[in-house]
């Protein structure tokens, strides 16, 4: 049994947990995040967010008097590790809930296992949307929240000729589909759409293709460190068109990492970034930096992860147990809300996704951030409208706009 | 003798490597049952001719016939199955495998079960390698490696045996013994074509000799005729004839 305890002890060592709370039976949370490999840039903050929330909750008496315990594994940006460790936390460590996954592929890798063992998993990432699964709670933003705000704003401000470059996989393709539909609805025109395989780092040709058609603005849905080389290369070829994105800045804090002005004039919709200038946000940041003084950036996923722990606390306290059916009954009441650092958020009972405050962040010439617009209480409406209703049935499937739930 | 179907025949055989003409219009006949030696100075094209006969190179032009059937573009293994066998100049054995295992691999296409074991035993005795049967072939002495390879080549029961400098690196005694083995095989009906430098050895075994020079057939005849040919002496003198 020693084997199992070690990572838990490590987790607690980090949290400085030796309080008398230990006497009570603890609530265990599994944390599977990529602390090494390709995705580490954006995910280490997620683990910190969970640790910070856990420490605060434990200092405040735990959940219903029971302390929180973290079981943390490094999934190395490797899907097979998610499969191994999801089984481990559910079967061996018998955790009450799991916070897991950065890439959608990793989520799809562990989802069958969560479903098999009737686990409860929080996916705290912005993603392409569409997961309709009773065992999943998604706290990240989805395309309808980010694009239904961003694209009309951009079209109004810059014009109706739009060019999309997107990573050539599910996230990019589905997001591009959303952009296409919204552009059409608003009477605009897609003058180009280009999909870039993951791992591509050379963009001269793409830059030329864009120059050929002269769009009013570009939607950049590029993912991964190799693809983010695009901005530097576009800048050096003097391609200075306005850009719109749902994925940059808010996740990989490119405006901090790249030399200005390569990201100048980029507009991003995000549910949180550390520049958000509200009292709640400032207080949150202060706590964060006290605990993790070297944190390079607090991104939207870090905040999602932080608030997810509090949401879980609220649901368990209202349900009076960690039992999943009891928790889902609480969700079905439709008022699981909290005041998060970003503002008020609520869980939508139909899709178990979350409503957000959406900030429009604009990157300036010197890579400073301004917020020309803020939308409050933007709901994840699409899944519910399309026919996913987890209070009625659990299809445990991921839908896309071109592959919606069958209505019957 | 030339009236019967030759066991091996080449017609107008040519091979170019880039601009290099290494086999030049070679018309060559080998009669069944003879021991024939191929000589010529270094770079005369002997090895290339061997490789063409074995199918390791494909000719640029010309035909190769074995027992009257065309084999010009047949892959090597198919030629071996027709009854050609070869012993390479650098011993071609399986160095990482044990000696008896080498022989087993050579024999297993023809024999199996007890007959295979018996034949391995017989060959080990014949090759004087019984004590080394469980050694790795790579650990044998040079002479023993040569013998092992001859054993493997012979175990295919070939009709035609190609020998590429079979006595290279051997002591005079070993050389002589090798000659006797070749003659014994020949007596059992195996046709032999050997590339050889050692003229004493050629004299010991050869019934006919072909001289190659610049890739072409330069002279052909018995060993005495060849030795008497001043032109042959001249091309060899240019090369340092020993």
């Amino acid at each position, binding site marked *: 049994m020693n084997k199992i305890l*070690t*990572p838990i002890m490590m987790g607690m060592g980090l949290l400085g947990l030796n309080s008398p709370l230990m006497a009570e039976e603890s609530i265990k949370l599994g944390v599977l995040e990529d*602390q*090494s490999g390709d995705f580490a840039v954006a995910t280490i903050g997620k683990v910190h967010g969970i640790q910070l929330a856990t420490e605060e909750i434990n200092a405040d008496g735990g959940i219903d008097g029971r302390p929180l315990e973290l079981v943390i*594994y*490094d999934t*190395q940006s*490797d*899907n*097979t590790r998610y*499969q*191994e460790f999801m*089984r*481990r936390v559910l*079967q*061996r460590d018998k955790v009450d809930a799991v916070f897991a996954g950065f890439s*959608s*592929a990793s989520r*799809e*890798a562990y*989802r*069958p296992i969560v479903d*098999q063992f009737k686990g409860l998993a929080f996916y705290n990432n912005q993603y392409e949307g569409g997961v309709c699964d009773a065992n999943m709670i998604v706290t990240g933003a989805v395309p309808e929240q980010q694009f239904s705000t961003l694209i009309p704003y951009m079209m109004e401000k810059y014009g109706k000729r739009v060019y999309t470059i997107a990573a*050539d996989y*599910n996230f990019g*393709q589905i997001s591009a589909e959303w952009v296409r539909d919204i552009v059409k609805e608003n009477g605009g025109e897609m003058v180009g759409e280009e999909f870039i*395989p*993951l791992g591509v780092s050379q963009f001269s040709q793409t830059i030329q293709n864009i120059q050929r058609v002269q769009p009013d603005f570009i939607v950049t849905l590029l993912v991964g460190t190799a693809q983010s080389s695009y901005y530097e290369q576009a800048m050096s070829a003097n391609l200075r068109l306005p850009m719109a994105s749902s994925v940059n800045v808010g996740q990989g804090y490119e405006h901090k990492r790249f030399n200005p002005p390569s990201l100048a004039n980029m507009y991003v919709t995000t549910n949180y970034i550390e520049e958000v200038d509200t009292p709640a946000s400032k207080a949150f940041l202060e706590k964060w930096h006290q605990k993790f003084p070297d944190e390079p950036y607090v991104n939207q996923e870090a905040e999602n992860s932080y608030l997810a722990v509090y949401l879980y606390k609220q649901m368990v306290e209202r349900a009076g147990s960690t039992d999943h059916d009891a928790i889902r009954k609480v969700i079905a009441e439709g008022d699981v809300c909290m005041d998060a650092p970003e503002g008020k958020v609520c869980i939508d009972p139909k899709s178990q996704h979350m409503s957000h405050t959406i900030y429009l962040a604009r990157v300036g010439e010197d890579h400073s951030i301004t917020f020309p617009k803020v939308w409050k209480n933007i709901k994840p409406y699409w899944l519910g409208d399309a026919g996913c209703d987890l209070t009625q049935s659990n299809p445990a*499937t*991921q839908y*896309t706009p*071109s*592959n919606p739930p069958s209505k019957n | 003798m030339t009236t019967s179907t030759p066991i091996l025949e080449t017609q107008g055989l040519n091979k170019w490597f880039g601009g290099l003409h290494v086999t030049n219009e070679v018309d060559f006949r080998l009669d069944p049952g003879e021991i024939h030696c191929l000589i010529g100075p270094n770079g005369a094209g002997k090895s290339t001719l061997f490789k063409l006969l*074995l199918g*390791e190179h494909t000719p640029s032009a010309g035909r190769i016939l074995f027992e009257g059937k065309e084999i010009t573009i047949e*892959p*090597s*293994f198919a030629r*071996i*199955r027709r009854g050609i*066998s*070869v012993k*390479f100049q650098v011993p*071609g*054995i*399986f*160095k*990482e*495998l044990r000696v008896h295992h080498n022989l087993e*691999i*050579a024999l*297993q*296409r023809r024999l*199996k079960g*007890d007959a295979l*074991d018996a034949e391995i035993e017989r060959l080990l005795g014949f090759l004087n390698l019984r004590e080394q*049967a*469980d050694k790795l072939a790579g650990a044998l002495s040079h002479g023993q490696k040569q013998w092992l390879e001859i054993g*493997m080549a012979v175990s*295919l029961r070939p009709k035609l045996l190609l020998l590429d400098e079979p006595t290279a690196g051997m002591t005079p005694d070993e050389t002589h013994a090798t000659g006797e083995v070749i003659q014994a095989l020949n007596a059992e009906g195996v046709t032999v074509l050997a590339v050889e430098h050692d003229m004493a050895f050629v004299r010991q075994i050869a019934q006919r000799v072909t001289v190659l020079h610049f890739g072409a057939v330069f002279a052909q005849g018995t060993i005495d005729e060849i030795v008497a040919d001043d032109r042959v002496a001249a091309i060899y003198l240019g090369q340092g004839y020993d």
Partner: protein
Amino acid sequence: MANSPHKMLFHKRLEGPQTLGKGKGFWSGFLLVLAAACVYPLFADGYDVGNNVYFFNWVFMALGLCLIWGYGGILSFGQVAFFGIAGYCYGILTINWGAAYGLSLVALGLAVVVAGLVAALLGYFLFYGRINGVFLGIVTLSFTLVCERFMAQTAGPQWTVGTARLNGFNGMGGMPPLTIPWFGNDIILFPDVQLYYLILALLVAVYLGLRVLLNSRFGNVLVALRDNPERAEMLGYDIRRYQLTAFVIASMLAGLSGALYTAWGQYITPSSMGMTAAALPIIWVAVGGRGDITTTLVGTLLVLAGFQALTVYGSQYALVLMGALLVITVLAAPQGLVMGVVNLTTRLWRRFTKEARS
């Protein structure tokens, strides 16, 4: 050995020059380990059993790679391509057919066959084109990367086979696990005790089957052509055919791994055919000892368990330690760590018995 009389053919083939381990000692040890493996689930929890099934899944691919690389001298960097192809096949077939009436087992078989057919096609191209050495490694690597990149962009709805969506980079899910029809009450093989016994049985069958194959005439030719292909050809063997056969068998084993993995996790992704995934089987086989299937089997299980433990306890240092393990293996125990240990103990044992005798 040369004059050992031929015993029963099967027995003779189970042990021989190409495989380590012979005689009563080895086989009683083998039975002991097998018995231990059989009763093990009685003493372990569901997680450990399922985790072991996960490890077993990969061993088939490692054994296949050992066959072509260790015995045939052909380093294929692309075995994971067949892993992925069979995995996707299993997914497509079972999503369309369902798992009733033993159809999931039929799908497993078909997936392996498809992997074999693709391997036959690619192998024909390679071996009959006389491509070998490092070039073969690069072509097979390119092949698997093409497969990966192609599958990664199949997220759109147009990439659907029957009712199965390929689903691009996110991977295909939703296929049923292996299911055995049982008098109207199907046994669903979730990664637990039942699946454990099925995979264990398969593993024993494949292991013994490979031993027989390797000690047969086929195995003889395979090691011969690794050692000296020219000589092997000049003994009348069509070495291309032997290489191709070995490659197809190895690829079918990789396919078996892939289909089992897909059934195990109900999930398969293009990353299974990526660069990192491609290197893993080579690491297992190299560290274990590619020269022998037993050391490969043991080594693969040890490396898999070791790397997992490193990831659990070594956190971010795991990858560094794995890398160091590889470099040290290659430098200090070129035949593989397990093989090195075997050799060392044999040597010590000989010395010990010699001293005891004198």
